[in-house]
């Protein structure tokens, strides 16, 4: 990491502590914001967060490892999560899986070569009445058909 990148990251984390405070409870909102902005929380960022909140770096790492939406390394620019729970399964998840995998040429759990999309299964999204459901980054798509899934994925940058 270059020095100026580090410095700007430190400034960013300091700003976040101003916004969320320096209590232990500020850890999660800070991590979520960093994840949203940088697609990952690098080891440098983890240590800086720990320093700002006066906790141990390993505690920050422990929290990140606990939550599947937080990552120490970048997984890809966009993360596509498909609900794998039973109602979405009944609503035709398997057709979606086939269509998406064929379209992108990768399996679920993998990232495309250009790091554009990472495919993942997720557990229930609470959209059981509108399945199959899919989340791309922060946005939920419901009643996805294979055709629509391919169209959506082609629009993802």
């Amino acid at each position, binding site marked *: 990491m270059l020095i100026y990148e580090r410095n700007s990251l430190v400034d960013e984390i300091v700003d976040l502590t101003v916004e969320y405070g320096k209590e232990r409870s500020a850890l999660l909102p800070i991590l979520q914001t960093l994840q949203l902005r940088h697609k990952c929380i690098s*080891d440098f960022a*983890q*240590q800086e967060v720990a320093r700002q909140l006066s*906790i*141990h*770096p*390993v*505690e920050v*790492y*422990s929290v990140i*490892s*606990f939550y599947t939406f937080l990552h*120490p390394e970048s997984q890809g620019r966009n993360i596509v999560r498909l609900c794998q729970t039973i109602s979405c399964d009944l609503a035709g998840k398997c057709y979606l899986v086939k269509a998406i995998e064929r379209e992108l040429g990768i399996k679920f759990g993998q990232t495309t070569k250009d790091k554009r999309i990472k495919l993942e299964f997720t557990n229930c999204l609470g959209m059981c009445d509108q399945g199959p459901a899919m989340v791309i980054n922060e946005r939920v798509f419901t009643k996805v058909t294979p055709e629509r899934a391919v169209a959506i994925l082609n629009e993802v940058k």
Partner: protein
Amino acid sequence: MNSKTESRAPVSQQALRVQQPFDSSQIGAMVTIEINEKKMQVPLGTTILEACAQNQVQIPTLCHHKDLCTAGVCRICVVEVDSMKTLQAACAFPITQQIKIKTSTEKVRKARRHIIDLLLSEHYGECYTCVRNKNCELRSLASEYGVDGFTFGHPEKRKHDIDKSSFSVMRDMDKCVLCRRCVRTCIDLQEVGVLEAVGRGDQTHITTFMGKPLSEVICINCGQCVNRCPTGALYTNDPSDDIWRAIDDKKKHVVIQTAPSPRAAICEEFGMAAGTSLTGELNTALRRIGFDRVFDTNFAADLTIMEEGTELLNRLKSVVVDKDTSVKLPQFTSCSPGWVKFIEHFYPEYLDHLSTAKSPQQMFGAVTKTFYAQEYNINPEDIVTVAVMPCSAKKFECNRPEMDSSGFKDVDYGLTTRELAKMIKEGGIFLPEMPKSGFDDPFGEASGAGLIFGATGGVMEAALRTAYELVTGREVPFEKLRIEACRGFEGIKQASVKLKNCVPDYTFLEGVDLKFIVAHGTANARQVMEMLKAGELNDVHFIEIMACPGGCLGGGGQPIPTSPEIRKKRAEAIYAEDESMTIRKSHENPRIKYIYEKFLTDGPCGHKSHKLLHTHYTKRGNFIV
């Protein structure tokens, strides 16, 4: 606490509530409870585990430890509580109302056996190749609870590699039972923060920051986690095979130095109660094993006092007389390698405060390979120095690259109390039955001041005995030289000694109130450092810090288990041995006088001693690359 009584949920789904709401005015009151149909009274807020222990009811524990906070994760201590649907963890259940507890019903016994079975289904490794074979808590639980097979299977392949990167502490995470004692030790007790539970559900494992090897993170090697691990997941790096090889090699001259704490604790490894010193027996045993010379580390401790005490007086002189601002006060002791690495990592900007004197172990190594080799005409290349220490960080210390002032590696191997006990057993010796014998010349004579280095406050007490006498020409004004202000297990102790009627050389100290602080455990050290940062300690002159709770006698290489009571017993043994000594002040040790006459001719902190007995430190910082 207002509890909502009307709930639409079915009874089985309702949250359990304390029937008699907790009344804060009752704090300190007694509650009548029933354990296994026997009525008794306990103070409000006592946990079931404590209540049972007070009433001779045994409850097995795994994650519970007297030094640590409650975790309640292993569930092995479950008991049946009436009015509770499920079994409750005894260690995490404070008694707030009249309850009836049953500790060994069928339900409880079955649950405990299941828990042990489940732990074993994840516990890779064979007991007979394990370092903790004889005092593994999981193993003894399995035998106590009649586990006679692997009901839920047994892993056949390793999931994690053994982390052997550190000089001191090894991690075999396949033996981990996730009790989190090491995590609580590292984060709460020592406030170092190296180990933490990572992952979720069945993926949970204990690891370091980003899963890095232990040598690359900010571990201070104190080994407190090793002392508290219930299984063989954490252990120290054992050099005993190399030492045996050196002993068997006829060309090598193997010398061993024994520190005060192992002598006061090694009895525990041979089934004796804590608090018996086996110094004489240990000397005989070491000779029978094959060590060529058995020396006393206390001699080097006396040497440390001379160097460190002189350094303090020199610093005081520079500050008071010469008004030199580059000289820093308070001066910190540097005997504890865990503490040295702690300050290098967390407070590198205060390294100037740390005494440059080496620890007794390293001074000994340096003197052995120079003075002793010269005096007895032995090629220093053939000398192998072994140090028996209560400490795992000493293994790291002797491997520091700067520790070669004799021209060779000053101390070749650091051996812990546990490993030495193993070697003695391997040598076919039952230690308590050995005849007593003394130490070998020329480093055989030591003072009681060197001996009490083993307990927290000992270095301070020893330094005061010498420094006070050097400055005023009189003994410290305490009965039987007991400086009570230094003793005891309080986290941070602060006291002062007034210097009056000084000898001509030290008139600049006339009327000075010599203030000192004693702290043990790095959590307390951190507190002291924060006080120093805030400028609250500007008038303090000398600070002793030991990395381990209780000082060296609670070190990471000492017999397992450890608890406040055991440490107290060990301290009593050390102080009793001190009072039985004839020489109780470092500067009165004839061997110390001799070495300053013969070898270190320019006196304490002179040129030669600076070269051999002093060191420098590295600003490590706490950034993990």
